[in-house]
């Protein structure tokens, strides 16, 4: 058995698996989930994938993601699959979906935007036609999602 296979089957008892993350994006996912706490984390990078050619995978023990976290991850890794594990069993498997509207997670790159001046959460409308773009509800500037800074 190759090393890659070993990592893949390295199961967790309870927690969340994020599979089919576009290769190279897993570190960004880790960053927004701020995974420095008590959870055991397994990272697979640049693994072979039928679906994507190459993919990253992330397994987090004893953690369920909030809706907000899932929305943020969807912006970075729209191809990902979210798997919930309970006692080694897959209890739920779902594809991530980019939300049409997202609050708080995006830091508006426009320094003159009110969200960077007053202490208020940003609000963005996401447009999925062609390249995924996001328009700030306040300053109305439009950005490519891949250029944006995402936080939870």
């Amino acid at each position, binding site marked *: 058995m190759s090393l890659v296979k070993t990592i893949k089957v390295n199961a967790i008892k309870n927690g969340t698996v994020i599979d089919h993350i576009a290769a190279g994006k897993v570190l960004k996912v880790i960053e927004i989930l701020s995974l420095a706490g008590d959870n055991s984390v397994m990272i697979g990078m640049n693994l072979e994938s039928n679906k994507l050619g190459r993919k990253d995978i992330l397994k987090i023990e004893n953690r369920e993601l909030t809706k907000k976290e899932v929305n943020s991850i969807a912006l970075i890794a729209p191809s990902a699959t979210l798997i919930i594990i309970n006692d080694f069993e897959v209890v739920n498997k779902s594809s991530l979906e980019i939300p049409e509207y997202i609050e708080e997670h995006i830091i508006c790159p*426009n320094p*003159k*935007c*009110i*969200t960077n*001046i*007053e*202490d*208020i959460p940003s609000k963005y409308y996401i447009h999925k036609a062609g390249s995924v773009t996001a328009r*700030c*509800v*306040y*300053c*109305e*500037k*439009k950005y490519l999602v891949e250029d944006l800074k995402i936080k939870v």
Partner: protein
Amino acid sequence: MKNLISMRDLSKEDIMRLMDTAAKIEKGEIVPNMQRKLAALLFFEPSTRTMFSFDTAMKRMNGDTIIMSGTGNTSAKKGETFADTLQTIAQYSDIIIMRSSIEGAARYAAEVVDLPVVNAGDGANQHPTQALLDLYSIIKTQGKLDNLKIGLAGDLRFGRTVHSLAQAMAIFGAEFKFISPSFLQMPQYIKDDLAEKDIKYEEFNDIEGNIDDLDILYVTRVQRERFADPEDYEKVKGSYVLNKKMLQNVKKYFKVLHPLPRVDEIHTDVDDTEFAYYFPQAKNGVYARQAIISILLEEV
């Protein structure tokens, strides 16, 4: 309509209702009464003309205004949050009319207070009342907004006014000529918006020779400060100054608009021609703003 924050929020029907109301107010067919109504004019960024225009609009309808002008008068400096400032002012007034250099300030204000909020300019973002008075000037002189040929000349890169106007006229199927120095061209995101709506536009570097087929020429100022090298400015500035000689073969109902103040981009010899419309345009601003306030306060 609860607020007027951005031209993006307005449908064709909203715009036509505003045009119709402004026309009726101008003709005296409707006389909105704002007695006992108070408009708070919060001009965190000073703009005397826009403020006077709103002040006049309110007073012509027997309404009253309270004015906060310049950043010096605001409590923002004393550490009060913007939301608290707004909430307090909302206790005294019936409508908030706000200008700020902060982009999105009016949108946020509308979320914080229950009163109608009018955006009188938020940084480089939106200035919808200017766009609406421009549209009102166009409909008055052309009899319609649909399918017109509009020239926009000057600084098209930084000019919020021309951006809003281009987007608004696109709703009505306009065709555009963009006339500007190459580095002050219409931004790509506006051109993308237009392309998405199948709106035709062409780009030019000179006013002269490019205006005979236009219904409207909207002139804005090319500022010397935009040029890194003053010599470059001297070289091109003549291309963006409109004079009477250029108007020999224009269309019968052709009109020249300008948001004012003008510096030297329209020669004064144009003023006496039938094509000059920039001063009536400023007057139209009062009717357009009366219509906006009346609709938001449900007085028409």
